[in-house]
């Protein structure tokens, strides 16, 4: 029960950050892909810089999580095709809908209800991937 509240609280924090940072704004995504502002590059860049420094520190010091287990981020499988093709398809949708899988839920909460159509599409897209998975190059 207590853990559930922690997960919910993490989500609330994340949702607030996504909205206030404007990473959930279709306009900011469009502006980013036109290279007309440093804003989104700054958001992603500083997230990444902080992320790299702390993750490398965690790995070097072999830090443990709340359960006493060593913190590990699983290595991704080696491949080029799936990451490149999947990535390009994702990018096409990201720019069109102006939202990735986190912000689409943030926008639903913010009251932009047509985003529910995007969420429906994303769930269907995930399902189609599952159906076609074995026929796609990975």
């Amino acid at each position: 029960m207590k853990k559930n509240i922690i997960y919910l609280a993490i989500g609330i924090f994340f949702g607030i950050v996504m909205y206030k940072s404007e990473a959930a704004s279709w306009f900011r995504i469009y502006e980013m892909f036109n290279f007309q502002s440093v804003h989104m590059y700054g958001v992603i860049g500083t997230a990444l810089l902080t992320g790299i420094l702390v993750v490398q520190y965690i790995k070097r010091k072999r830090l443990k999580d709340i359960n006493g287990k060593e913190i590990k981020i699983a290595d991704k499988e080696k491949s080029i095709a799936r990451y490149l093709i999947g990535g390009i398809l994702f990018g096409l949708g990201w720019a069109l809908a102006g939202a990735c899988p986190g912000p689409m839920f943030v926008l639903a909460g913010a009251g932009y209800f047509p985003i529910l159509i995007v969420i429906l599409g994303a769930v269907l897209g995930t399902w189609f991937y599952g159906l076609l998975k074995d026929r796609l190059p990975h």
Partner: protein
Amino acid sequence: MEWILDPWPWYVSGPLIALTMFILLYVGKNFGMSSNLRTLCTICGADKTCDFFCFDWKAQRWNLLVMAGAIIGGFIAANYLSADQVPDLNPHTVSQLQSLGFESAGKSYVPTELFGSEAFSDPATIGLLLAGGLLVGFGARYAGGCTSGHAISGLSNLQLPSLIATIGFFTGGLIMVHLIFPLIF
């Protein structure tokens, strides 16, 4: 406390996104939002259609709670932590968008042309939003992650696959905005 109501600058927001990832790592979980889409499929019965959705979705309940939190967070941010927040876009972006027919550029948080309630009665808009969602969902699972799993989490762990995926995300975005937008807007 005025600053909370203002848009948050990138140099504050970026590290706070990383902080979200660290808290998740500290409680023994990984940062990845698109996994929830797969869980939603399974809950809706997709496990009866193919093996990809046959997994114990209850083990992913924590992530659904993060997702539910994100919805609540969006509600709180929009209603209680903002004084009608409008992104301060580059004036060139605004005029470019207005020439594409986005009159709401520079006046609202997201384009009312796509996300206003009129969207539900316009088949073309419904089609665009659905197509956008389909690509995001299909692409995220094909690439094994989205912006949170690859561009933030994976790259922080210096994973080459995540770099390839992130290059893909940007390639796709550039193709959409520069080659496909002129055809559809």
